[in-house]
């Protein structure tokens, strides 16, 4: 089982380049796709889900081009879009039965599956109510259930935890971990803690470009020895931000405790810290911005 993305680009009308020559190869496991708003994450997800066609490049699912033969992937694809709707007059069971039929799942198999999925997303007791009366979080859980209907080998989930309460987020992360064994899961989010908890590999996307694709350990190794804590008076915070990448701050009685990502020891009384994925993510974005500035200046 392999998903290969080769030189993938997508241009929208008005000369907007959403993706630029993205290359990535995936095997079973969970890929956490991180990036700021407008990075191209949803465009990439939509192309991988066969909903959008690329402008150039190709995506190979088990060596088959999904633009040429989308059904080879669709039969085994689970997709939770970032924005999706439901039919308000149908109940959760009826909506899932409808999508199961559209996905070509037999009646017997889908009946059992829907029951399990509704238990799984904690909607069993609300399953017969019209979806029009569901809250945003409940609809999101219906979306998660529909993505798992056909026991997908490739599961693509775009901002899946948006609108979920903390308890449901933990349930969903655990579910992803359990599902990831023999399938490829792509989880797009800008919540680093979601990725940190479950991802076996992480890709960082910004301005349509793939900045990094590595294991969490690999990304952390990239910023090892570059994360520091400095304690400064609050009036110096602004100048610190101008000089260094500050990933977080906390006000304490002895001053502001700032977490700084820098190649060398910042010019304050700094102590080294264990790097986090958020540090690695922000460092990658910062390096890309610096490259862009240098490119523009040249």
């Amino acid at each position: 089982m392999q998903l290969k993305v080769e030189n993938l680009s997508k241009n929208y009308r008005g000369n907007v380049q959403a993706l630029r020559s993205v290359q990535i190869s995936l095997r079973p496991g969970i890929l956490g796709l991180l990036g700021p708003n407008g990075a191209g994450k949803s465009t990439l997800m939509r192309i991988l889900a066969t909903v959008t066609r690329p402008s150039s490049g190709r995506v190979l699912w088990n060596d088959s081009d999904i633009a040429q033969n989308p059904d080879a992937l669709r039969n085994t694809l689970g997709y939770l879009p970032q924005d999706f709707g439901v039919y308000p007059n149908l109940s959760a069971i009826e909506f899932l039965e409808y999508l199961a039929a559209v996905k070509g799942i037999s009646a017997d198999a889908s009946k059992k599956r829907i029951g399990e999925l509704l238990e799984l997303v904690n909607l069993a007791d609300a399953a017969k109510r019209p979806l029009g009366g569901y809250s945003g979080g409940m609809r999101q859980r219906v979306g998660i259930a529909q993505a798992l209907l056909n026991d997908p080998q490739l599961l693509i989930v775009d901002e899946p935890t948006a609108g979920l309460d903390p308890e449901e987020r933990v349930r969903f992360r655990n579910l992803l971990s359990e599902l990831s064994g023999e399938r490829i899961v792509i989880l797009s989010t800008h919540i680093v803690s979601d990725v940190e908890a479950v991802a076996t590999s992480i890709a960082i996307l910004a301005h349509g470009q793939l900045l990094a694709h590595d294991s969490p350990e690999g990304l952390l190794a990239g910023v090892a020895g570059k994360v520091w804590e400095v304690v400064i008076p609050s009036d110096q915070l602004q100048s610190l931000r101008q000089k260094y990448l500050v990933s977080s701050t906390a006000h304490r009685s002895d001053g502001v405790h700032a977490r700084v990502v820098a190649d060398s020891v910042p010019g304050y009384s700094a102590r080294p810290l264990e790097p986090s994925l958020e540090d690695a993510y922000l460092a990658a974005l910062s390096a890309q911005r610096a490259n862009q500035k240098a490119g523009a200046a040249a």
Partner: protein
Amino acid sequence: MKIAPSIYALARADFLERVRRYSFLLTILFAGFLGYGAATGRIALHLGDYRGVYTSAWIGALVALVTTCFVSLVGFYIVKNAVDRDRQTGVGQILAATPLSKVSYTLGKFLSNFAVLAVMVLVLAIAAVAMQFFAAEDPQLDTVALLLPFLLVTLPAMALTAAVAVLFETLPILNGGVGNVVWFFAWAVIGIGLPELSGKHWLDPMGLMTVADSMMAGARANIPGYKDSFSLTIADEPSKIVETFRWHGVPWTSQAVLLRLGWTAVAVLIVILAAAFFDRFDSARWFVPSLRRAKKIPSTQLTELANGASALPAKPAAAIHLTPLPADAHRNAFFRIFAAELRLALKGFRWWWYAVAAGLLIAQLASPLEISRGPLLATAWIWAILVWSAMGSRESRFSTRSLVSSCANILPRQLPACFLAGVAVAILTGAGAGFRLLLAGNSPGLFAWLAGALFLPSFALALGVWSGTGKPYEALLTAIWYVGPMNHTPGLDFTGAANGAFVIHYALVYTAISTALLAFAFFMRSRQLRSN
């Protein structure tokens, strides 16, 4: 908070959002098409075999009447989406949290509706000027005489149309397809029929009678043989005219002007009334009453549902387990999609909708054949209009397209299933007449009945896929239904009852049209799937 700037800002934003959509170009094209029809004599005003000389007064009145009639009917469907757009885009939630009052909101939407309709009127007014030059019967351009009918007849009618569109959008029962059907009858009865039947000028919201009476008085004064006839017609070829006479326009007395301004004031009152019904985007007001099992849900749970909480204790995360699907779970069972589409099509109607459909079915079985296959079948099929109007546009309307389009082999399975579900509804609702035709051995009638059952969903699917909304179908089918089956116009009667000796001929035509419409729907959907 200053009210006037808020209303202006709301109206301006809504207007700009509309005019920057491609669909607005279609709106302008429609206005241009009407202007062309009037200029070439295909849409014409006749007083029997007579008409006025093409002076500024006559052309102004002619084009203003054409505009009033057609733009008020079609324009309603064009502008009846201002509140819905805010609901769909979520902008309404933001507005609801501002100090903007409900009256300010409905007034803003009314002004935006009115501005869109006024642009169409402007296009037609320009066409009227061009028409006088092309007709070249009177070289004298009198701009006041030409434009006054637009100002005093058309614009108040547009204000009423804009206001009623806002009112319909704020009334839960009329904000959807029912309202689209109701508008056609309201327009026909109150706008056109009522002034004619009552003969009272103050009961003439469109102002048509004011102009018509003045023209007829002009004809009586100039043509001895004239017999009080007046008609606005659409024809393939310009009609032959025996004689023309010079008409100097409506004598706009202060009473006549006040009457027209009075209707503009009525429009504003309708908008204020709409504010009383407006729910201010409170979704609880919309959803809670429609919950089929609302009575069984404890109020505490409903409150939690509305607040976004699950209301149910979460299962521990460790209990998560999914049984893998068996190897033979994937089957291309077309019947299951068809059944799912049929259920989707029939969901959401109240019990009384089914009761009326069943009553009409029984009546078809119990009535004489001609009544059964005529008015009863026509009524049974218009009763199901909202089932079909959702076809093809449901995925856009409810944002489920990305879910559906990522499923395998979707085009050749889902669209035919949806179409056949529509055919099944037509056959079920019209089964009484079909059965009667079968028993009577009326094969041509049965063929026409079947052609009608194919036409209704294919027409819906084509328009739904093309437009992404059910409105064009609701408006067009209601109009065809009124002219065809209800007024026995051969060719336009899709039930076949009024097609007489040509019943097979027309049935073949309807079958061919249905095939073409289906092909168009497939083409459009496949383009949509490719162009994402």
